[in-house]
Each structure stands twice: as structure tokens, then as C-alpha cells.
């Protein structure tokens, strides 16, 4: 427990250099919008991609910084924060572990997330799920089985289309999962039924420790949908799906700073990537240089954010574990109470829905 908290504080102190602009003070000193040139996307079966300029607003920066604060105990995701940006909260989202960043953007509080990670009753799944199983409205986890979430996401997209609402489902998976057969099954059915599903491959270049070159015959993940158009950007993709054209495939090129899990030592190239293409630092530089925020303002919010994290971490360690009576609770939904066998025939647990 202490080791995990130490890991969080180490990370947080580095985060202090990258503050959050969560406090949106509409000050007359700062501009609200700025236009930037961005890199052109690689395209597959698409005639035109998203525009090469984009307007960055303070709200977008706000979301992005918030996610940076979240750290997993088991599977860290730092360096990949940009993947969260650009997602509409009303849409549906499903991913695999690590999902803590996404869980936060889907409306859960830091306290609930950290308490779930420490297995406390104040956790979002009441201590039953842990790191890999966090759920919220329109957010379906956090799934433990690599690749299984992709057909689930296609199913959620089917529900979106079935209900006739203008919603899409963002289905995320990594470069490691991209080699699972069931993903191609999901692509096929999604294309056949024209499901509003955005398949997003977060390519952080490594599975656990296996680099993409050693795991995949073709590393152009955005092309793997074959008949599904692909590109290496979210607003454009969402508009494509909502217009009824069917699914689309996106690949996000990113990088993971820590190892796959806490027991993985990581690799040397981290520092190089961190200095050149860290998404938070790049965004911060752009914001400051184009007068969207001042360095002092960003520093102020960093202090506030750190306080919030400390408070949540304190809660996550002080909150009691779930009571033993709850071991059998919530196995079935809407069922009358029944008895569950414990480790031997004399231990009887109660189960309520």
C-alpha cells in the first residue's frame, strides 16, 4: 500500500510541472481560442480526412489535464492522455484495462476510483471489481480479457442504432489486442450492419513487453478494418459514424512511460519520447505561447489538483474494506434473496440483489 502511494506521489510531483487549467476564469487577459496547424492523418479508404488546422479551446485543455492526475496501481497509462481528448460525454465508451483515465472523464470522482483501486467499500464497484472493472453511465469498463471488449463495443453500437438515437460507441483496444480474431469478427459484423462504432486502436508500440514489430506482421493498425475506413482524429470519426455511413477505425500513435504493470521495469527510450512528444507538455506550451493561459494560472491549479489527489488518496487508505457480509451480494439483478455456500457447507452467505 505504501509503495503504491509512493508511486502516486512521485508521479504527482512530476505532474506539478504540468498543471491543470481546471479553474476556468474567463479573464480578459487571455484569448479563448487559438488556431494551430496539426499533422495530417494517414488515411485508409477515405477520400478526405480531418482538417489540418484545429481550434483549441480552454475546455478541451481542461479535460485533458484532468485525466493526467489519474494513476493506476496496476496498469499505468501516463503518456497516453491525449487519447481521451475529443470524446463527447453523451456517447458510449468501452475499453480494456487500464481504464482509470477514461473512468474519470465519464463522471466518476477521484475518490471513488482510488477507493476502488484499494478495494474499499467507497469504491465505485464497492470493492468488488478493482482496477479492471469500473463502470459509469455510458461507460462499460475496464474489461479484463484483452480483446473481448471489441465485440461488446460493436454490440453497444448496435443498441445505439437500434434505439435510433444519434449516439456512437467508441471501442478502444491496444496494439496487443489488435491481433485478436474476435476483433475482426466485430469489424465484419459492424461493417455489414453499418453500426455506429468507432474502433480506436491505442498504439503505444508495446504489448506487455513485446514491441509491435515482433507481434504484428502489419503495424498499420488503422488499415486492418479492410473495408472499414481508417485514419490515424475523434471528432471527424464521430461525425462520420453519426451520418449513418457505418463504422470507422482510428489508430492513435502514443507511448506508455511506465511498464505494462507494476512489476514491469520499462525501457530506456522513455526519456527520449517524454522530452519530444509528451502530450501534456506540448499542450501546455501551446496554451502558454498562444496566450490561452499564463504560467502562474497553471501553477495555481496544479496546487489545487494536488490537494484533491491527496485528499482522495487519504480517503482511499482510510475507508474501510467492504464488510464480509457483502461477499455474496449482487450476484443476480432483481432476484429475491437467497443463500450462497461459503468455503464449507456450514458457512452460509446471504445474497441480495
Amino acid at each position, binding site marked *: 500500500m505504501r509503495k503504491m502511494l509512493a508511486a502516486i506521489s512521485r508521479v504527482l510531483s512530476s505532474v506539478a510541472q504540468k498543471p491543470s487549467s481546471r479553474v476556468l476564469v474567463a479573464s480578459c487577459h487571455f484569448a479563448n481560442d487559438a488556431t494551430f496547424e496539426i499533422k495530417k492523418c494517414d488515411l485508409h479508404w477515405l477520400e478526405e480526412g480531418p482538417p489540418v488546422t484545429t481550434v483549441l479551446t480552454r475546455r478541451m485543455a481542461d479535460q485533458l489535464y484532468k485525466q493526467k492526475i489519474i494513476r493506476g496501481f496496476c496498469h499505468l497509462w501516463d503518456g497516453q492522455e491525449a487519447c481521451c481528448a475529443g470524446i463527447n460525454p453523451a456517447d458510449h465508451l468501452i475499453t480494456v484495462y487500464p481504464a482509470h483515465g477514461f473512468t474519470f472523464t465519464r463522471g466518476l470522482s477521484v475518490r471513488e476510483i482510488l477507493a476502488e483501486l484499494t478495494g474499499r467499500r467507497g469504491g465505485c464497484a464497492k470493492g468488488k471489481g478493482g482496477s479492471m*472493472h469500473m*463502470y459509469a453511465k455510458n461507460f462499460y469498463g475496464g474489461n*479484463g480479457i484483452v480483446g473481448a471488449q471489441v465485440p*461488446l463495443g460493436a454490440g453497444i453500437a448496435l443498441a445505439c442504432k437500434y434505439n435510433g438515437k444519434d449516439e456512437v460507441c467508441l471501442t478502444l483496444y491496444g496494439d496487443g489486442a489488435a491481433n485478436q480474431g*474476435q476483433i475482426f469478427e*466485430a469489424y465484419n459484423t459492424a461493417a455489414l450492419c453499418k453500426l455506429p462504432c468507432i474502433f480506436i486502436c491505442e498504439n503505444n508500440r508495446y504489448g506487455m513487453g513485446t514491441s509491435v514489430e515482433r507481434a504484428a506482421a502489419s503495424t498499420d493498425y488503422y488499415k486492418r478494418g479492410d473495408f472499414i475506413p481508417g485514419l490515424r482524429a475523434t471528432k471527424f470519426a464521430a461525425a462520420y459514424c453519426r451520418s449513418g455511413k457505418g463504422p470507422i477505425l482510428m489508430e492513435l500513435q502514443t507511448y506508455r512511460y511506465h511498464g505494462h504493470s507494476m512489476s514491469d521495469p520499462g525501457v530506456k527510450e522513455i526519456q527520449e519520447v517524454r522530452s519530444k512528444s509528451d502530450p501534456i507538455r506540448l499542450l501546455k506550451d501551446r496554451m502558454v505561447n498562444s496566450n490561452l493561459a499564463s504560467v502562474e494560472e497553471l501553477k495555481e491549479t496544479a496546487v489545487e489538483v494536488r490537494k484533491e489527489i491527496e485528499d482522495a488518496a487519504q480517503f482511499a487508505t482510510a475507508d474501510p474494506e467492504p464488510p464480509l457480509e457483502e461477499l455474496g451480494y449482487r450476484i443476480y439483478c432483481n432476484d429475491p434473496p437467497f443463500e450462497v455456500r461459503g468455503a464449507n457447507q456450514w458457512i452460509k452467505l446471504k445474497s441480495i440483489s
Partner: protein
Amino acid sequence: MAVVAVLVQRPLEQVSGLLRRRFLWTAPAALQVTVRKAISQGMDEELERDEKVFLLGEEVVQYDGAYKVSRGLWKKYGDKRIIDTPISEMGFAGIAVGAAMAGLWPICEFMTFSFSMQAIDQVINSAAKTYYMSGGLQSVPVVFREPNGASAGVAAQHSQFCLKVVSPWSSDAKGFIKSAIRDTNPVVVLENELMYGVPFELPSEAQSKDFLIPIGKAKIERQGTHVTIVAFKTCGPLLRKGIECEETNLQTIRPMDIETVEASVMKTNHLVPWKEAGHRAEICARIMEGPAFNFLDAPAVRVTGADVPMPYAKILEDNSVPQVKDIIFAIKKTLNI
């Protein structure tokens, strides 16, 4: 000791309907329906009741279903509600589960249990465990239907993970499929291909659109005093010898109604769990742990298939599954005659 029977509630509308009649009437006659028709009718009524219910599976649309169980449904409900899938069990099982998570009520048909094994991950890890792992936040109201699961003993794997499993065999299948569809939890319905074409009486109560058979209740098909067999095969030859078997049909493999079996064993003092029970070892273990153990006059004798994969040649196949002679042998063994 009183034997627990399945209670069927007469729907209110039938009662008031009877009261309203003025002229000569006869009670609605019991119909003869095949198991196939019973399941089909159950699904039809649920599709009609709730537009969030839909069916997906291989060949369920234009082919009318591999075993013709979904005949007529596509013509009635169209492309949106009855969906043909490619041959991608893992994929479409996951799609069914995802749709259920997002608020629909899918029925996912697997052509056979053997094919469904490809999808076991989605059934267990994505469907069965989710409500518990999410701390009660995310329910998954999906039904998985497949023929030939019971005969392959697949129930044991399924029911390890708190997954509800039913194995109806008669026209009761209608009440069960409706209960399964209305259940907010994932339910696996193991059907029997050999029984699809067999007709059974569908009692008048069961003809109502709201007739449900509760999941988790066993049924005494035939009362007896000498031995409890957990399965449902009439033992004519034994009757002639004066041996009366109490035939207990579990119907639901999980949650198992062990109380009914216990009550029966406490009456008959002998137990023979048979093949179709799907969970013979569990039954024996639970009887041993419970009050009925002290009432047993002899160890339980299980009747199982041979411990081999299913062979092809007729003579081999016949000898790899329990025959009536095997059940009779087991009963005589436990009765020591």
C-alpha cells in the same frame, strides 16, 4: 413428506373471462405442441411484448433457424429484430452481451453447444460476472440458447460462475424461455435437438401470454416411494416389478433446487442421478452435505455416459450414452436387488 410440485398461477384475465361468459362454454382445451413450437411461441410472445427483445444467431432469418425454431419470426418482425450473423460465435456473442449492457434484451442463438464453446469467454467473463464485478451497477439481460448442451454435460462449466442455466425438455420450454428472456440476468437455455419434434400437452394455463415457469424450481414428474431418480425417464419395466421410481426433473441446473431432491430422498432413501441431470456430482455432494444424507440406505449410484468423446459408429455411440438398461441396472444396484 409432501412433495413439492410446480404451482401454476391462473392468470387473472382468464378468470374474469370465464366470469363474463353467458353461454355454454368449455374450458380451453389442452393443446398438443412440439418442443420446437413451444420455444418458438415463447420467443414470439416476448418479441411482441417488448420491442427491446431481439434475436440474433446463424441462419435464424431466411433459413428459419438451423432447427427451424425461429420459423416465421423474421417475416413477422423484420430485419431489425431478427438478425442473421456471420459464422463468428465469439464475435456475435460479444455483440449480444454489449447490446444487453446498453439496454436491449437480446436472445443469442448458438447452432450447437460445440460451436458455443468458442464464445465461452464472452458468456462467462463478459456476461455472467459483470453484475457482481461492477458492484451491482451493470446488468446484462441476455439469453443464450443452444441445443445439445445438456447431453454434453456442459452445464458444469457454465454454472461454475453464477450463471443461470435451465434445461427444459417438454412443452415447459415455453414457460422457461419466457422466464429466461424476462430475467435481468444472463441465462443459458440448453435445449435438446432430439426433443424438438416431440409433442407434449400444453395445459390451458400455459397458453396464456403471461405464463412463466420460475427458474430454480424442480418438478416431480412422477411420484414414487422406492428410489429417487434425478431425470425423467419412465421406468415401465421397473413398475412391473413393483419398483416405484420418483422421477425428479431438475429443469434448472443452476440455481439448483436441491430441496426438492432432498425431500424426495428423505422419502425414498435411495438416489440415482442420471445423465440428463447435467450435474450429477454436485447433486451427490449436496445430498451428502445436507439433511438427506442420514436418510440414505445405500450410496447414490450415478448413471453417466462413458468417459469418452462422442464416437461416430452406431454401436459405439449407443454404448457411450446411458441406455434404459443402464438406469435399471443402477436402480437395482442401489436397492440391492
